């Protein structure tokens, strides 16, 4: 991009700092004013400021996997409406999954910012509304998008600075939680307006031309950082395959096939060979396929920089239309998030071969989601809730994977403390800890998943969305697979059932349910792991003595404080195994 005006590097840095602060302030404004815990606690939102070509300039700290989705949304919405039909003070609203990249609950507001009658920039925000015109608040069994929520392609929620009360009335009539929706939408509007105000102030201070030149420089800088990192990778093609257990309706594996090509300073991802779009709602709109790959790419090439469009310029993605990762109307998409996790995993798996020093082995690949609802036996009140769990992180080429971390697509998402869970719901936590032996063995071991067992104190209805239960996915360079995810109903009893996805399952008071999440896969041959480290793992109870011998070929002797490595037996066993 040629810029007619040059701008000094100091001013560029000052303007960069201003943009970063603007995005942060927009996040704060949204979180402060929103009504839904999913926005202010789980950070299920994305927002930022964009230049006149809708390129991302700066993004607030929301859900990492929403990174960069709004560029596509802004462009499609503006093309659909026609720039000539948008005036200053108009704000557009979009809930159309194939444009926002998400289920219809994720609503996008777009505010074009004008200067002398021209659009000079945009501010935009996407946030998860608790309920919008769907048959239920969450769905794992929808078969088209019309069952999933109200479809709005591009409507003006604000016209010349005034809220459209009729549209507001339609929205309120299509939700079980009208006040919450009003609050969340208002918060989004005020976040976008704050962004617009800050950008207009910036132009007033430096002039549109200087700001444009500085912005171009900021994006070019991001591009240069990314291209340098990609150039440092060897050229070549690497492939991977990740299977999702099922689509929520048809119990057959759904396979993602990914090929990444590094050529000079360019990275291309081809998803040809991926399963066709499915009957159940696991389909992932192309925008989110793209953003999951952008996230994985950025985590590898520039983990310490704030994101902007420049970083993504060297990445191109192809996914054939009509497939899982580029579905067409009216394919259902409600639980697209599980495909998002899987495609991100596939990217790391392929890059583990291409740029091993930047990638990681497979993670547990899931969030162990269990939702419950019922009537409190003590108060007679209806309640509903749920929680996400951590998994083990994958090992890397020179370090073990971390134990018990939320999946990388979810960033800052937290668990619910046991004591708070018990305050809110008639559920008693019996045990909660790291899941022994769940990690994949390796020269560097994967992280451990978690196990959490509940005793139900009043009758409950359970929904579980747990994938990657089939397991057996190898690690890298001889690293072993971790134990897969699972849900156990009536654990350790003769009636024990092992499950993944459940809808409307009834549990009675006194019954138990246990979630066990997967560990991360290992990296490198476990026989090369230092025997002293294996001993430390056994002492800490991360690895069993049996696994030490079977997987790591390390023989231990003695017990308690006297536990030690039997050096001779270990040497023999490792020689034989080699």
């Amino acid at each position, binding site marked *: 991009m040629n810029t007619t005006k040059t701008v000094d590097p*100091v001013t560029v840095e*000052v303007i960069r700092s201003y943009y970063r*602060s603007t995005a942060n302030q927009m996040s704060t404004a949204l979180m402060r004013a929103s009504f839904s815990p999913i926005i202010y606690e789980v950070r299920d939102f994305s927002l930022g400021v964009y230049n006149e070509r809708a390129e991302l300039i700066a993004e607030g700290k929301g859900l990492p996997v929403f990174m960069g989705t709004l560029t596509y949304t802004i462009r499609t919405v503006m093309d659909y409406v026609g720039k000539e039909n948008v005036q200053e003070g108009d704000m557009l609203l979009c809930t159309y999954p194939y444009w926002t990249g998400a289920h219809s609950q994720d609503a996008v507001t777009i505010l074009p910012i004008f200067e002398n009658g021209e659009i000079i920039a945009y501010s935009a925000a996407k946030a998860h509304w608790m309920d919008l015109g769907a048959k239920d608040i969450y769905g794992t069994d929808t078969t088209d998008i019309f069952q999933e929520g109200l479809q709005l392609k591009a409507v003006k929620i604000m016209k010349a600075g005034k809220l459209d009360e009729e549209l507001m009335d339609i929205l309120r009539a299509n939700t079980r939680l009208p006040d919450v929706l009003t609050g969340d939408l208002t918060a989004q509007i005020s976040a976008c307006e704050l962004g617009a105000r800050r950008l207009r102030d910036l132009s007033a201070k430096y002039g549109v031309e200087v700001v444009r030149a500085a912005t171009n420089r900021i994006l070019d800088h991001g591009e240069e950082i990314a291209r340098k990192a990609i150039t440092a990778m060897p050229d070549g093609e690497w492939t991977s395959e990740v299977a999702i257990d099922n689509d929520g309706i048809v119990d057959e594996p759904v396979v993602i096939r990914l090929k990444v090509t590094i050529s000079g300073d360019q990275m291309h991802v081809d998803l040809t060979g991926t399963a066709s779009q499915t009957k159940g709602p696991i389909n992932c709109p192309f925008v989110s396929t793209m953003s999951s790959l952008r996230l994985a790419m950025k985590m590898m090439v520039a983990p310490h920089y704030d994101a902007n469009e420049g970083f993504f310029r060297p990445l191109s993605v192809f996914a054939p239309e009509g497939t899982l990762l580029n579905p067409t109307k009216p394919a259902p998409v409600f639980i697209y998030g599980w495909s998002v996790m899987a495609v991100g995993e596939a990217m790391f798996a392929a890059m583990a071969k291409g740029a091993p020093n930047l*990638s990681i082995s497979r993670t547990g690949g899931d969030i162990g989601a269990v939702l419950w609802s019922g009537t409190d036996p003590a108060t007679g009140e209806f309640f509903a809730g749920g929680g996400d769990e951590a998994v083990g992180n994958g090992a890397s080429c020179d370090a073990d994977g971390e134990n018990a971390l939320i999946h990388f697509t979810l960033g800052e998402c937290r668990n619910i403390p046991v004591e708070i869970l018990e305050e*809110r719901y008639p559920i008693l936590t019996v045990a909660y800890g790291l899941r022994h032996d769940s990690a994949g063995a390796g020269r560097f071991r994967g992280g451990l998943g978690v196990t959490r067992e509940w005793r139900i104190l009043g009758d409950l209805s359970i929904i579980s969305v747990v994938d990657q239960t089939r397991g057996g996915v190898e690690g890298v360079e001889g690293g072993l697979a971790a134990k897969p995810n699972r849900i156990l109903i009536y654990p350790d009893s003769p009636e024990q059932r092992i499950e993944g996805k459940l809808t409307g399952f009834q549990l009675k008071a006194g019954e138990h349910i246990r979630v066990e999440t997967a560990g991360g896969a290992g990296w490198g041959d476990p026989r090369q792991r230092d025997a002293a480290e294996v001993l430390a793992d056994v002492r800490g109870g991360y690895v069993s003595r049996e696994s030490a011998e079977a997987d790591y070929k390390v023989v231990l002797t003695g017990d308690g404080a006297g536990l030690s490595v039997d050096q001779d037996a270990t040497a023999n066993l490792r020689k034989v195994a080699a």
Partner: protein
Amino acid sequence: MTKQHSSVRFSIDTGGTFTDIVVLDEDTGEFYIDKAATTPDNTLRGVINAIDKAKVDVEAVNNFFIHGSTTALNAMLERKGVKTAYVTTLGFRDVPEIMRYNRTEMYNPRYRKPAAIVPRELRFEVPERVTVKGDILEPLCENSVRDVARQIRQHEIKAVAVCLLHSFRNPAHERRIKDILLEENPDIPVAISSDVAAEHREFERGMTAILNAYLAPVVEKWIGSLEEELAARKFPGEVVLTKSDGGGMTPDATKNSPINMLLSGPAGGVIGGLHLSQLTEHKNLITMDVGGTSFDIAMIKNGRATVNQETEVNGYPILISNLDIRTIGAGGGSIAWIDDAGAMHVGPQSAGAVPGPICYRRGGTVPTVTDAFVVNAFIDADRFLGGEMSLDAAGARKAIESQVAEPLGIEPMAASSGILRIAMSNMAEAVKSIAAETGEDPRDFGMLCFGGGGAMFGGYLVDELEMPAAIIPVVPSTFSAFGMLMIDLRHDVVETISKKLSDMTGAELEQRFAELVERGSDLLEREGVPAERRSAERVAEIRYSGQEHAVSVPVTFSLEDEGGKDALYAAFENVYKDVYGYTLGSAADVVNLRVKAVGEIPKPKLREIERGEPDTSGVRHGERQVCDFLLNEWQTFGLYDRAALKAGNIVPGPALIEERTTTTVVRNGQQCAVDHLGNLIITRV
């Protein structure tokens, strides 16, 4: 300070680079300041050096010695606490390692949590279970506890932390465990979570207990040595240590809960700010402290600072009362650097005290903010620290030229001004972000500027942020130590309720508050605070049912009266609206009741300075060419000695007002007034 005084108090603030001392004569209001180098391996040496350097006649100090120390924080950051064990409910020993799942470094695929303070094999479980209502579901297995005690001995553990589920509702099991462990191992101290932080959330409470146990022996030893040193000097007064919430505590209280002194470092400046806001018309202040490595900001509104009940240090949550002080990496030592793709940055890395800025001649090789201040001539290289130290201006200029200007292809002065401009805009954006989080507008606040660099950036920041005034207090570079002189004793007592407001009566709430007030008052009484100087602030932490985050609601009215509960609900919604911008009108839960018991320490009277006329042309002792860094333009700045200024004086900008340890910059278009206490007030003309 060799003169005998009947009434003297002094304070010492141990910082990263310097240990600052302020000695105040309470009869005359005169004070004396000095600095000694901080001795990181044993901070006590720096303290003694400061006392000796200031020639404090310790024997004659019949009043207070107030001390803010980084001892606990350093021990935590450097992992120099003692070998600690953790005891918890069967099935839950991994809670301190699991933490809360979140990835603090969101884009780092190889993210690692901070290494566990208590390794897994030293985390023990005992069969027992208390329910959410505080009932005993499963009795404590005492044999298991005795078995754990044996293992603790075998592992040569030096401290034990105990955290059981719901123990804050019924501490019986935790207390029994403590008794048994002490019976079996009388020499190994035990901290129980219901004593340290009686609040819900097992990970946060347990971690607070762990850190308290881990640091206690270190802090106890340090206090012992401090008391010995003072006794050897026949110190007749009382020692008060600074807490993270800006209150003070006795050495005994500190030994019990050393965790409370963890973030006492930057608290002194805020205490000073609070005092200043009471003495002057500046009721709303943003305090800013520019040190060597960081820029610390706090907000004082209507004479009150925000106190949080939770904080995070090095990735670990800690449930202690702490002043809401935010920090970014921007200070005098912040490094200017160019990244791989040619963008210029300043900080967050710092050259620190060693090697420090290039101009300090301590081996620094990379340009810093202080180097730029020298190149732009804000700092007189030949008169630094009153001429004690001659700065290497040529070295600073050369480095900025070769490491910043040349790679970027810009003029050397543009580079030097640019370093300061970037540092300043990072500070300004940090202030705006923090104000936005609390729903405030910086334009409604004055800026209180201190630390070595506060007085140099203050005028620029108030221009940039359109704030009405920058206030440079007396002794700006040792203002934290100065602020400590105004401390009060404080105790926090808390009880978790977690009940719907509608399920409780006003009388019940009043009763519980009364018990907490009494507990706080008892603590102060034992410390010798007479009844007339004991007071209590009551706070209810309330949230809407179904939400997680509670807000703190001051309860200044009786809850027993007719409508007391309605008033509480209304007060809650008012606070909630301030924080979140809306209200729901729906049911609310009372999460915690908290009482802050305050033991007032009488405040010294500050000396008013001599009055003079507005005109200051008589004390303008010279001028210098200085490069304004926003305009990158050389201007003629008038030179003034701060010591020569009188109340009522007005210094027109552009001017530099110099004192031994810092320089106040008054920009062109600004003026600086001197108030009755000697504070400098910079405003736009």
